[in-house]
């Protein structure tokens, strides 16, 4: 036992001696939570729009004023020809063009019908859908005014209520995602590199010939990373409740327990990576390249998992951060208790145990 404590002390000294890495370990989560929490948002507003008004009558002027007044649109100068439209789209200066044909008001009055043409730059499909919806909404409202809606029979009034995030901020979705991402990547990377480094420098050999038990070597290697990650976790939780107005609604104890489970799972993955990698570079590439993008995409905070093809959905099940992300959302944002996250907790525990068991068995006690 005394041996183990001495050894853990050695590992801590190693970590704390390297100030630059340490700064990065704590600086990264802070910078990410602050940057992403404040900067990332899914709300689409101030989209640049041009209007071509070939009619220039009272109705089109009213409609243009309504569009200009909306917070979703920024009206750019009006347009003379179709060539200009093409060029503006290619330059990316506008997202949408709204075209009123000639005799707009006259048609509307005499035939009761008039058509606005709306062209969206669909190279970003979501943005195109959203802003087309906004324009349609404005025009529907205007129609309702024309038809004098109050006098219409059978009015259905949908009452929409946005739960958990009434202002549709980006932070409630991104903070849990970033938590999962940062904890997972930092743990796997730090662990795998720390072990492979000893292999590369040859000091691992000295450890292996010593009477020290293999399990102790592993525990000592994992301990500093576990503690750093837990400290990180608290920094993130405090930051998000103080600056981003996202306090933990549910039980803090439950969240911390599940987080530690998740951290241990990530540490085990790092351990597993270190077994197969011969050089630090290979370990880094494995954890950085192999893990970063899949973790980002398959966790579910950027893209809804139910939209993915079945093989990908299946694949996402083996990404631990996916389950952790669900747990944080439920406990932190919705304030639910253990009864609604026991399944995810169980899955994480299973992953953690089996990964640790595999890496323990495969941990080589000989270098060649």
């Amino acid at each position, binding site marked *: 036992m005394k041996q183990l404590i001495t050894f853990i002390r050695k590992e801590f000294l190693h970590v704390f001696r390297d100030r630059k890495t340490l700064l990065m370990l704590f600086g990264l989560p802070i910078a990410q939570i602050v940057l992403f929490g404040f900067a990332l948002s899914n709300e689409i507003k101030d989209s640049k729009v041009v209007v071509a008004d070939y009619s220039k009558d009272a109705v089109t002027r009213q409609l243009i004023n309504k569009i200009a007044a909306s917070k979703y649109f920024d009206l750019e100068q009006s347009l003379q020809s179709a060539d200009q439209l093409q060029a503006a789209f290619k330059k990316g200066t506008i997202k949408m063009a709204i075209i009123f044909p000639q005799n707009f008001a006259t048609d509307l009055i005499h035939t009761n*019908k008039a058509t606005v043409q*709306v062209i969206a730059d669909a190279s970003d499909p979501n943005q195109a859908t959203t802003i087309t919806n906004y324009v349609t909404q404005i025009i529907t409202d205007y129609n309702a005014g024309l038809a004098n809606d109050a006098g219409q029979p059978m009015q259905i009034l949908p009452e929409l209520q946005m739960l958990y995030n009434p202002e549709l901020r980006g932070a409630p979705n991104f903070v849990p995602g970033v938590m999962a991402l940062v904890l997972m990547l930092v743990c796997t990377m730090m662990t795998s590199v720390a072990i492979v*480094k000893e292999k590369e420098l040859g000091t691992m050999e000295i450890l292996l010939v010593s009477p020290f038990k293999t399990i102790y070597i592993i525990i000592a290697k994992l301990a500093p990373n576990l503690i750093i990650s837990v400290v990180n976790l608290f920094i993130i939780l405090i930051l998000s409740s103080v600056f981003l107005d996202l306090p933990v609604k549910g039980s803090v104890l439950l969240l911390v327990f599940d987080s530690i489970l998740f951290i241990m799972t990530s540490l085990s993955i790092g351990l597993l990576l270190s077994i197969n990698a011969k050089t630090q570079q290979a370990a880094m590439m494995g954890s950085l390249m192999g893990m970063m993008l899949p973790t980002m995409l398959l966790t579910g905070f950027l893209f809804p998992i139910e939209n993915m093809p079945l093989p990908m959905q299946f694949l996402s099940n083996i990404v631990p951060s996916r389950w952790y992300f669900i747990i944080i959302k439920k406990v932190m944002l*919705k304030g639910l208790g253990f009864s609604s996250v026991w399944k995810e907790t169980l899955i994480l525990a299973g992953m953690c145990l089996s990964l640790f068991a595999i890496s323990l068995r495969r941990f080589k006690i000989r270098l060649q």
Partner: protein
Amino acid sequence: MNSLLFLLEKEFRQLLRNRQLLRTLIIAPVIQLILLPMAADYSVKNISIAVVDNDHSTFSRKLIAKITASGHFKLTGFTASYKEALSLVEQDKADLALQIPVDFERGLVRENSKKLYVAIDAIEGTKANLGGAYLSSIIKDFNDDIRLNWQSAPTAATFQSAPTIDDAPQISVAASNWYNPFMNYKLYMVPAILVTLVTAMAAMQSAFNIVQEKESGTIEQINVTPIKKHIFIIGKLIPFLVLGIVIFTLGLLVGWAFYGVAPTGNLLVLYGSLVVYLFAMLGLGLLVSTYSATQMQAMSLSFFFINIFNMMSGVFSSVDSMPAWAQAIVVTFPPSHFIKIMRMVVLKGSGFSDISYHLAAMAVIGLVLNTWAVLNYRKTS
């Protein structure tokens, strides 16, 4: 000049000799580019909806049928109370709860108006926003339908005094979607994912490579030779420039073969921008290497930048919807410019004059980073 050639020969030999690394560098991006765009589908469909039908009337059944037939919504199930529906939302089993009140049909007929209650899980802002908009427009359509049916029915005589829907002037919207008429999200994602892969593979390798020489001590041997430091640096950068171009080309081929994403624009424009981009990113790698003594440090620093670049450069969420201060920061990230260029050239066929601003921005960032790195690089420690 001669010494540069020798250095290049050395670098290429070292790069080609390390088969394990080379395999990772080339196979990993190809596999990721094949798999990841499938996951990156943000088109909003499959919004799951829990319905509380307290009315059980023809109207309520028709409305539910209309919602499920729209293709945007997936019915999770009916619950007996609003509270149960909300708990389904709480459990992530439904994104949306719709309550049809008692006397929905009767109220509409007798009192002319009736409320519907909709609660949306808004943690994912976009989904909530679009889901709400879709549902509102379906309800509006339904409203128009029942009015028309009601008025054409013979029993509607009592309503003749009210203005009918046909009398009202209507403005309709004809919407068209340029450059991506089928709203294929993959066309939008493949170019951006390719950029993140090139960034991670080629650019950050340069940092590791130099630091590795520092750690193993071989850099000392080069430092004591009369090789000038800019020659040494150029010798380090050119192999990674070539590697970047190779990965990029492979990526374009994969995008074309698997997703049918073929650049509409000029390839010369694409490759020209790629070289400027790599110049900037290799400069960053170089700068990272001058500030790190160990590979661990180089990795931590690179990881910091790559992660922030990936999240902030507009791959996943639009830069335009960020606040002004964040946009000011993002302007200094080379990937944000290259991702814009890629999407513009690949999807819209933009030419040099259209992308000149982004190209110039990348060149300036590249010059600053490289100059900084060269000034900071010391042959003596």
